[in-house]
């Protein structure tokens, strides 16, 4: 045991002296948290209703219908800013989203004339479609308001008729809430951080964890260990331990940065999240050792590490919510370690389903770690 601890300690010290490892363990995860969280945050925020979308509404003398259309736009997570006309700003740029109505909106509608509402958006391809659906829903609801209020009103359509309609009790009401105990749907950084954390732990352990073993074998360090008074199990356990502690350091640092810099909400089951992440670290340590035992060159170890980490991360739901993937990918996610870890984290963070809900995943991960470690021990070569 002392020998294993000795090797683990020295392996860890050696790894922490490598600039590359330090960059990947401590610097890259927060950079990716920021980038992925920023890029996907706007989109998922809009989908979950967590963020509003600013829109300039250009209408000359819109009249009383302005209030009703404003109401429907706000119902659909827009933040309208009404202007008489759209003019470029001091840099000559037009607003990013403009909804333009024909002049004299209310009087034309009251007279039964058709008014054109033209929506121009420069949003990215990723969010454009959903934005268009929300604009259409806002305007069609406003149209339904107009038609209904007009039919109910004895005279012409008026602001008072619309107010009266708005005050009517809806016979069918909808109570919407997320499943589980968490009351706010995670979006932006809260959604991106767990996936990136899981991916980076695997990436670091599969690349630097594996290539270090290959380099030690090439340089004859392992051969010298073979002649040292310690068993093969102690050597492998020591190598595993060094990687496990490295993974835990990375996880600890990422959790700290996620909490302090990105205000990540981990929910009430933090101790169980730590247990899940430690089980994941154990699996990654075993996988790094196995890859290091199988690879012949440093290039193979790090290349295969990058490849496997990215593929497993994508298939396991670390890159995107698994719902957006085809059915076969969703089924496959149930059989891969990244999928188990992400499911366990979703249970604890997104659903706040209680610590017990993650126990099956922890057991599966630890079993997986044991099996992979057994293969690593079996394939471990001193030279």
């Amino acid at each position, binding site marked *: 045991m002392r020998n294993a601890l000795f090797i683990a300690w020295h392996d860890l010290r050696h790894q922490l002296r*490598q*600039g590359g490892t330090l960059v990947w363990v401590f610097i*890259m995860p927060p950079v990716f948290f920021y*980038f*992925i969280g920023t*890029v996907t945050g*706007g989109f*998922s925020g809009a*989908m979950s209703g967590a963020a509003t979308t600013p829109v300039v509404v250009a209408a000359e003398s819109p009249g009383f219908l302005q209030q009703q259309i404003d109401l429907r736009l706000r119902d659909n997570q827009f933040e309208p800013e009404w202007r008489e006309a759209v003019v470029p700003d001091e840099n000559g740029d037009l607003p990013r989203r403009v909804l333009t109505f024909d002049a004299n909106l209310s009087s*034309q*509608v009251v007279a039964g*004339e*058709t*008014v*054109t*509402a*033209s*929506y121009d*958006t420069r949003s990215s*391809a*990723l*969010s454009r479609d959903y934005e*268009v*659906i929300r604009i259409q*829903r806002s305007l*069609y609801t406003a*149209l*339904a308001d107009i*038609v*209904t209020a007009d*039919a*109910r009103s004895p005279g012409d359509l008026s602001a008072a008729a619309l107010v009266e309609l708005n005050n*009517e009790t*809806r*016979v*069918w*009401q*909808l109570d919407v809430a*997320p*499943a*589980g105990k*968490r009351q706010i749907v*995670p979006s932006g950084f809260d*959604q991106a951080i767990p996936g990136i954390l899981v991916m980076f732990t695997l990436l670091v352990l599969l690349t630097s964890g594996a290539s270090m073993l290959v380099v030690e074998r090439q340089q004859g360090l392992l051969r010298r260990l073979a002649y040292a008074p310690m068993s093969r199990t102690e050597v492998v356990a020591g190598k595993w331990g060094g990687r496990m502690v490295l993974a835990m350091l990375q996880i600890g640092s990422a959790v700290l940065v996620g909490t302090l810099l990105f205000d990540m909400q981990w929910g009430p089951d933090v101790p169980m999240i730590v247990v899940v992440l430690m089980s994941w670290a154990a699996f990654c340590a075993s996988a790094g050792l196995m890859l290091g035992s199988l690879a*012949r060159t440093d*290039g*193979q170890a790090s*290349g295969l590490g*990058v*490849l496997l980490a990215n593929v497993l991360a994508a298939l396991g739901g670390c890159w*995107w*919510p698994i*719902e*957006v*993937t*085809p059915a076969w*990918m969703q089924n496959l996610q149930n059989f891969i370690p990244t999928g188990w870890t992400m499911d366990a984290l979703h*249970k604890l963070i*997104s*659903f706040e389903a209680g610590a017990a809900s993650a126990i099956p995943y922890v057991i599966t991960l630890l079993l997986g770690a044991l099996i992979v470690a057994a293969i690593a021990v079996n394939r471990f070569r001193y030279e």
Partner: protein
Amino acid sequence: MSFALTSFRKDIARWRQDFVATLIWVAIPLMIGGLITTLMGQDVKPHGTLLLVDEDQTFLSELIVGAYSAGELGELISVEETSSRDGLERVNDGEASGLLIIPEGFAEAFLESTPVTLTLRTNPSQTILPGIIQNVTEILLDAGFYAHQLFSDEIEVLTSMTDNPSDAQVAAIAVAINNKMENVAPKLFPPVIEIEIVEPPPAEPSPPLVLLFFPGIIMMAVVFASNGLASDFWRERQLGTLRRLVFSPARLAEFLMGKALAAALIIAVVGGFTMVLGFLYHGIGWSHLVSSLLWIAVSGVALFAWFAALQMLFSSQKTASVISSMLVFPLLMAGGSFFPLAVLPGWIAAIGRASPNGFMADRLTTEITAAGAWSIDLNSWLLVIAGAIVGLAVCVWRLRTGFARA
């Protein structure tokens, strides 16, 4: 010139010996590109399950149930009827995108004008499908509200009727409904608000999203390969090749030209493999292939030259490797390799377009989405070629000023 060819052949032979590493450079963008293409392909749509508890079991509640299975919505959502207890258990377990409970008295509420609340529980670990389910449910309930408001008098008459209404009563209701329809018709047919969605201007074509990912993924392969090839200078220094070279009559410039040519060939193979598959998948015209391949090869040499120049500035291979890693990933992020420039927030996209790989990916997008081949403008070609020449000149200078002698 013959020494340049010798240097070229030597590098190709060395890279052939570690062909597994080269294969991995090919495999990384291929796998990532394949996964993204699978995900973003036109035939792939998110799919989830809506658990439905219909405690009302009336014509109106069945209308709601049927709405989720109709048309395109039916392709996104599978409706599964279940009990309230099982549904709650399963949605809390993350097994479905949502659970909708239509309570008993749903239809009666419509007729009696007494409010009733439907319950929708959504899966918090999902982003898109719960939003769609919520939107569709709200639209259906809105439709019910407006129908109720428009025909409240007629509904009242209907509910007060006996089981066997007379012909006169039925006729009166029909006439009343017809009158209502005629009343709303002027504002509804055609609608008084006509919605027009402005298409992106032709100058800014909007190709399918999956196609926008393609150039970034190719550039990812090019960046990985050029950075990996650049680190070869350190390996050659450790092997003593560079030291022997500076004391031999061979010219450093020719040695470097050979390395650059080898880099161009390897990069063209690495990027070209994914490119050919991408051309096949996206149906891009083959007339664009030569120009695209040449573009990534020239771009790759420029990147290789600058990565090499950067790596040779540092005193140890470890430092050089750390610095280049720190540079590569932010470059890939901003340059559109993880998300296309078109979907990045404006400020990141602006940085991305100014970054070398982002600029190269942007021009490659132009080439593969343009109607004709050789669509990259002359200035861009000249800029990349100039970049490659200056980068290689910096490498020669660094080799002469000590890197090769150490």
